[in-house]
């Protein structure tokens, strides 16, 4: 289905990971929450379970390469964060430079549905990067030619 593409960024002590994701959206305005769906077998799942925090960077159209590089290899095999232009937010979340927006979230509720976990999280802080504000979202349909 047509949807936006983002990077799920998690940092748990010395371990960190970046995972390409398109299963995310808003939950509610009060409380101000969003959801992400993560496969139970993924490395990010393990890290979120450990810390209860994650960041979501919504990608712009010119970040296709970052989406591909973080979506084709497991974080257990490779430190994907090393190749990304990341910085730490005031509340200590990993944020991505050049993303349309990076949002730090704290998990409020987890719901297991088959092999996925639905993480419902409070939105703690968001950074907007104006360098790419003129670009649209990177969409799943932009990968049609791959």
């Amino acid at each position, binding site marked *: *289905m*047509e*949807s*936006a593409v*983002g990077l799920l960024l998690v940092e748990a002590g010395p371990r960190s990971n970046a995972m390409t994701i*398109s*299963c*995310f*959206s*808003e*939950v*509610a*305005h*009060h*409380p*101000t*929450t*969003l*959801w992400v*769906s993560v496969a139970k077998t993924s490395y990010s799942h393990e890290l979120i379970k450990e810390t209860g925090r994650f960041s*979501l960077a*919504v990608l712009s159209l010119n970040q296709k390469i970052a989406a591909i590089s973080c979506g084709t290899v497991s974080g257990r095999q490779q430190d994907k964060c090393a190749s990304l232009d990341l910085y730490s937010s005031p509340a200590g979340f990993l944020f991505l*430079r050049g993303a*349309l*927006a990076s*949002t730090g979230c704290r998990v409020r509720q987890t*719901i297991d*549905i*088959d*092999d*996925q976990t*639905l993480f*419902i999280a*409070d*939105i*703690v*802080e*968001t*950074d*907007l*990067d*104006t*360098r790419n*504000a*003129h670009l*649209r*979202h990177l*969409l799943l*349909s932009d990968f049609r030619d791959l």
Partner: protein
Amino acid sequence: MIWPGRTIWDTRVQSVCGIISARGEKEPELSGSASFAQFSLSPLRVIINPNRTYPIEPAIQQAGRFAINVLPASERKLMIKLMKVRRRQPGKANVLGLRLSEDEHRIPFLEQALRTVFCEVERTIEAGDRKLYVARVLESRINSGISNERPLLFEEVTSGESSFFALRQTARQILIRSGALDLIKKLRYRRRPPPAPNIARTTYEQAGATEEELATILKYGALDSSRRLSPPPPPAILRKELGICVVGTGWGYLHCRYLRQASPKVRLFVCGRNPEKTAHLAHAVGAEAYFIGLEQAVDDPRVQALTLALPHDLHRQAVELATAAGKHALVEKPIATTLADADAMIWAAKRAGTILMVAEDMHFRPAVREASQRIERGDIGEPLYLLAHAGGIRRPSGWAAEKARMGGGVLIDIGVHYIRGLRLLLGEPDSVLATRAMQINTRMSEEDSVQLLFSSRAGWEAHMLLSWVSQRGHLPDIVIAGEKGTLHLWPGVHYFDYYPVAPVLTTRIVSQLRPYWLQEKLLRPTLQRIRIKLRDRDVTGYLREMQEFLAAVAEQREPVTPAADGRRDLEIVLAGYEALASSRQTEIRALD
């Protein structure tokens, strides 16, 4: 540059736009959304988060199925219109002119969508002011005709109905790329530093709701089904010859005038009791012939229909006589003075297979039609109050001053029009309270002024002030106040006024002016006024009312406003009289 986000919309998680559709209780429900996404690939599941105050939420809950209609970028205007439509508006598809289909999935869907995802709900998750629906995908159907088109994005619809969308987008891009936007923001923040960001609080303040607030909002229902009547489009012009006899030589003159204007195909006859007056009227309006006494008129084979401009107490007798002779009838409002008479008239017409229509010009008044459409489209948000102020100096005499013949005073005479207006604009009232000031015209047996307060369980109220003994001055006769704007309807003019709550450009400019004394001097309520011209020149609706009657007779069909509508108006008027007599809030019978 990096700026802190202040609301949930700054997270940019709202991306692809679509319309969620589901079967509603009576008709399909629709809701715009930019926060749906797939949850898992195998099995394919999606999640949507409908707002709990929108009717789509109970519709999905009841139907257990819904469709996500992903919109192509070319449907930007449709999405903007849908986002603007009143939240509690029933029949949103009709308001937007959308045609929905339904197939074996038993889910209404949009054929012009880029993709339609048919879903069945598996579980719901309580999540504050929204509810999450996790659903299994039954089928994902791509529209091959437009499969190369990009989906519509949320950022493309947030600017609203700007007619210079492309220009604004280009200007924004230039400002962003040149760094000018950052510079402006920096200067503004230096001059007036913003408070520390608090996404949860700011989002809640702008669009969130607590459980208590949700309960308050939903107290009046997610859907406002109180409105049963809709103003019709202008009727067709009569193309075939018809013999019409106007009965009554007083108000009947106006009937003759409008019949003459309505169509050149009308063969006009007049009928009265007074030979001199009747002959004079026939001559004045160029009638083909005239009749003395109704019996003569109904017996004449040249006459197919009658318009009755008679004292109210004679309506029943006249209609029964006409229908017995197989003639159609247009009767002046009110339909009668009692419900028993109204029922007898409706029954007589039904038995004879003839058309009976009540002359209610409010039903055809162009300003009412336009205002009603604006309410549906969401221009004033939820309508809250209707104020009607009508009357003027008038001293009724003869039968019009006698209760037995007139049925009452100013309420039954003028109030009946505004009750129809209320029904067309807001809906059916559930109760009425009536009070009145002292009687000035002691020659009248009934009230020469009255005020009424109508209430609806749907959450709106209406106040009517009707008087024949005080001057109305330069005021609109109907004001409809809503949460997002107010409409002023003026009698007898070719326009109406719209005052949006959101400041218009001139108000925004003036509100920035300094010094303050200059701003105060220039900042007038009329700056917010948007005057809307009416294309229909028949500002009262009398002409269209006459044309509709002629069209109904010529086409042998029920008029767009059948006599039952007039009976209902009378029922509400009589409830008003009951409230006036008892000084108590009086229930009005609910329609089935």
